[in-house]
């Protein structure tokens, strides 16, 4: 069932929450088919995908367009079916899962972005086999132009 975004009052501010169904789960977490997209204004542009099955399973994500402006998403038939759309669908959200390690900047998984279809509240982690994207893309700090 689709869930409308709602605000959650909290010390960190109003956190928007919307639920997405991942019909196939995600790799290594196939049983986790429902995730909440949590948007905290204090953490923008980073968002969190939190498993409804186990809230300890939480993925920090950032828009791929921000990390790799030239990124080209290729959706296969199977992914389109899981998202309930066709390959030319507009309005899809494409997020890269971030991995934080001690002592270094995070990396972004551009090999397997999370694709969300807000119109149908469906999601998939789409593995991009042919473009040569890295699952360890370095996240660089935005610096103002001088």
């Amino acid at each position: 069932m689709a869930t409308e975004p709602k605000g959650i009052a909290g010390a960190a501010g109003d956190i928007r929450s919307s639920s997405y169904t991942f019909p196939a789960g995600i790799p290594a977490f196939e049983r986790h088919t429902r995730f909440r997209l949590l948007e905290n204004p204090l953490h923008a542009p980073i968002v969190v995908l939190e498993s409804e099955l186990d809230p300890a399973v939480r993925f920090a994500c950032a828009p791929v367009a921000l990390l790799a402006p030239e990124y080209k998403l290729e959706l296969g038939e199977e992914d389109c079916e899981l998202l309930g759309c066709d390959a030319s669908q507009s309005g899809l959200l494409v997020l890269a899962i971030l991995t934080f390690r001690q002592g270094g900047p995070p990396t972004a998984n551009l090999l397997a972005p999370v694709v969300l279809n807000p119109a149908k509240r469906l999601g998939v982690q789409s593995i991009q086999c042919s473009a040569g994207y890295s699952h360890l893309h370095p996240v660089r700090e935005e610096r103002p132009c001088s």
Partner: protein
Amino acid sequence: MLVIRRKEGQAIRIGDSIVVEVLESTPNRVKLGVCAPPDVRVVRAEVLLAEAGNREAASAPPADVLARWAHRLGGEKARRGAELPG
């Protein structure tokens, strides 16, 4: 690494129970058919990378770390530019 040249319709056998057949070959990609016992997991190599990456990333860092990196990535202005909802 063992290298074997095959054409469409030809196959290789791995052990007694695994057969890999070349179903279609184009300049850009090869379509393979794999016959293997049910207990042998057959996946694209990239799936294993995605699994390993997800396991490592599955516990998002504390709020202060997220806030710090959010700021470094450009904050709310960057979110709007990347067309996240809200």
